[in-house]
């Protein structure tokens, strides 16, 4: 059995040991074959977090694991970071050099900006879990090989299969050829999709011709425990009739699993409309939804701002929902909230998610939008989970921050997720 490619450190949060954390992380990421930018970025970020914890919680336990996920180097940190300090992790929080409080946490603030992805969560016992990662730099894709000429007799029966590593390269090539808009991240760069599949972060199925040529493909990632995001299907010219069987194949694979929801975007011609519900448009792209189980009904939270919209969607989609009044949800205890940000600079898109409630959420949201605009982001999205009361209470603040509601994803998280998009000013 091959051992996992990861290195773990458990040590007390002591400033004197900061160099150990930095050098170990750097050596690990370099050893995994990542370039200097990835190694130094992740190492520096971890160093900043460690030093901050060593300052505010000296001597407490600090655990870090640096793992090779092939397409990215990922670090997981478990530490005794107070919740009241987590707001400094906001990737787009403004740095005010005249703010003493901000200067104290400057390192922590910087740490989230040194990596490509940063998330904050809590383990079942309530301890803080930070995940940060740097992407591997991939060479540009080589010239795209044209799919073979269409054979009208090809059938899907028996030809849908799990792609080999070689077919993963052709799959990515097919995505790059077929996509009419921006190519999804997994298929950019030569070899990223294959690495993601090896790391367990991407699955795929292909339709092949008798010679093994990839004539159609569908790929998917598990975005959350209950939600799968689908890419495709994409088909070679003349193979559009195989899109529906390929999608059926995926839906059969997901049957009787814990997946409740499948989300897809129309990224290429031949999208099988009859297998999805169209939800609307987000960031200029059509978004589709597919529930995998009968909807047994649920409650959802709404404030005065979102109630009419949600009720209209419930009516249109026949969603059985009891709407609860978010005004009854308790006000936040913490002064500062935290908003997570998933950034894709290549498509100029950022997706914000409320992570920790705070009394400054209205200001924080408005600041995020302002900074994202100044940073050149064209699509600023926000996801609110209406199974969580305090998310729903933010409707008014979200509107004031410049967001407009776009689509509702039923059962996508704790409850239904409302996706907002900042309107152009």
């Amino acid at each position, binding site marked *: 059995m091959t051992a996992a490619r990861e290195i773990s450190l458990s040590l007390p949060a002591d400033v004197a040991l900061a160099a150990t954390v930095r050098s170990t992380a750097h050596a690990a990421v370099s050893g995994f074959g990542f370039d200097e930018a990835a190694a130094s970025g992740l190492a520096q970020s971890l160093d900043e977090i460690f030093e901050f914890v060593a300052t505010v919680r000296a001597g407490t336990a600090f655990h870090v694991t640096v793992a090779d996920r092939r397409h990215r180097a990922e670090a997981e940190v478990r530490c005794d970071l107070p919740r009241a300090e987590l707001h400094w992790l906001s990737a787009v929080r403004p740095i005010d050099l005249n703010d003493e409080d901000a200067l104290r946490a400057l390192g922590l603030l910087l740490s989230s900006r040194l990596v490509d992805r940063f998330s904050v969560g809590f383990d079942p*016992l309530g301890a803080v879990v930070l995940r940060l990662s740097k992407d591997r730099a991939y060479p540009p894709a080589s010239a795209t090989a044209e799919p073979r000429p269409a054979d009208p007799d090809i059938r899907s029966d028996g030809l849908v299969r799990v792609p080999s590593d070689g077919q993963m390269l052709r799959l990515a090539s097919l995505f790059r050829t077929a996509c009419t808009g921006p190519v999804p991240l997994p298929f950019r760069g030569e070899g990223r999709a294959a690495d993601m599949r090896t790391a367990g972060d991407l699955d795929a199925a292909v339709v092949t011709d008798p010679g093994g040529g990839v004539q159609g493909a569908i790929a998917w990632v598990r975005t959350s425990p209950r939600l799968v995001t689908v890419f495709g299907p994409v088909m070679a010219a003349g193979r559009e009739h195989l899109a529906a069987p390929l999608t059926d194949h995926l839906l*059969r694979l997901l*049957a*009787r699993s814990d997946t409740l929801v499948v989300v897809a975007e129309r990224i290429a011609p031949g999208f099988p409309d009859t297998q999805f519900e169209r939800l609307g448009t987000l960031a200029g792209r059509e978004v589709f939804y597919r529930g995998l189980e*009968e909807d047994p*009904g649920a409650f959802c939270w709404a404030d005065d701002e979102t109630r009419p919209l949600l009720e209209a969607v419930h009516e249109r989609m*026949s969603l*059985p929902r009891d709407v609860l009044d978010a005004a009854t949800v308790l006000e936040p205890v913490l002064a500062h909230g935290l908003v997570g940000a998933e950034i894709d600079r290549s498509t100029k898109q950022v997706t914000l998610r409320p992570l920790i409630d705070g009394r400054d959420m209205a200001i924080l949201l408005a600041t995020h939008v302002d900074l994202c605009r100044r940073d050149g982001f064209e699509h600023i999205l926000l996801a609110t989970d209406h199974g969580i009361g305090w998310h729903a209470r933010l409707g008014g603040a979200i509107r004031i921050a410049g967001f407009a509601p776009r689509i509702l994803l039923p059962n996508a998280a704790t409850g239904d997720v409302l996706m907002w998009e900042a309107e152009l000013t």
Partner: protein
Amino acid sequence: MSGGGLDLHRLVPPHVMAFEPDSVAPPDAVLAGRYGVPGLIRLHNNENPLGPPEAARAVLASVGAGHSIPYPSGDAWIVRRAVADFLAIDADMVVAGNGANEVIGAVLKTFCAQGDNLVTADQTFAVAEWVGRAAGVDVRLVPLRDHTFDDAGLLARVDARTKLVVICNPNNPTGTWWTHDRLDDFLRRLAGRAIAVVDEAYQEFVDEPGFPDTRALLARHPNLIVFRTFSKAWGLAGLRLGYLIASPEIVALVRRVMISYSVNAVAQAAGAAALSEPQHLERTRAMVRDADRFLRRELARLELPVIGRSGNFLLVRLPMPDTTAHRHLARRGFLVRTMSPFRFPNHIRVTFSTLPIMERFIGALEEVVRVR
């Protein structure tokens, strides 16, 4: 998961942690409230809209205040004898349970240890698959061939660790079935290497010749177990009553793991009474024939393809996700079963009902399909 610092995950076997529990809908009244309709017509569980036979109704009507309710017969003696008389077999060949599902679980417990395997189809009633996975049994799924259990495919997956081969005949949800000769041939080729479990929950709805003669097959194949139920044609689903028929040797083994008193007294009495009224099956079959004819004609008019041969249901392919249709039909007062969990995406299974109900259902379905 933790409870007061207790690490529950450490105490639970991995195969249980990996098991995804069945999702259970709330009671109809709650669901109807959520969908904003006064009531829901149940076309999703293959129940008999005619209800149980009169004799069984009389038993149920006699259950009332003032009667003491003693323990039932611990091994369902009453209903086992009634089944034996009905089928002209020995009562030692019958095990009754709290629904056929309990008996399926008992068979699995009797024959399978962790690491053993069972072989069945991928697009069929899933209880054996669920119970097997929850018990740490390797479940091997064989694709249907022409919507029918694939005998050669099943046999190809049998190995030294195979304990059960589970066949649904007629198959739920495709309604296809093996004839007597085909099942006999399959059992001959299986040659006692594993127990053959044949679920005949829908056998009462087969009115074509050639269906397997259970008694004759049991006499020839000592590794055969047949399941039947009172939940479908007999209209007693809510009482939870099902049974298996097998050789006395198999029955003696299965009874080792059965929980005594699991079949309540009312279910035993009602089940026994129901069997005294076989003409109820004729009325039910006539209702099914009418509904089948009507639905096929109307679905053809709507250009919706169907799959089905025998059973009190039809599988319908829709030009939309089945889960979407389920919600829109519920909003119009009808419950159907989505077939994505049966690995038939975009299909719903519709239970046959009386013609007035079927006519209203077609009206609702037409709205749902046309609106899209």
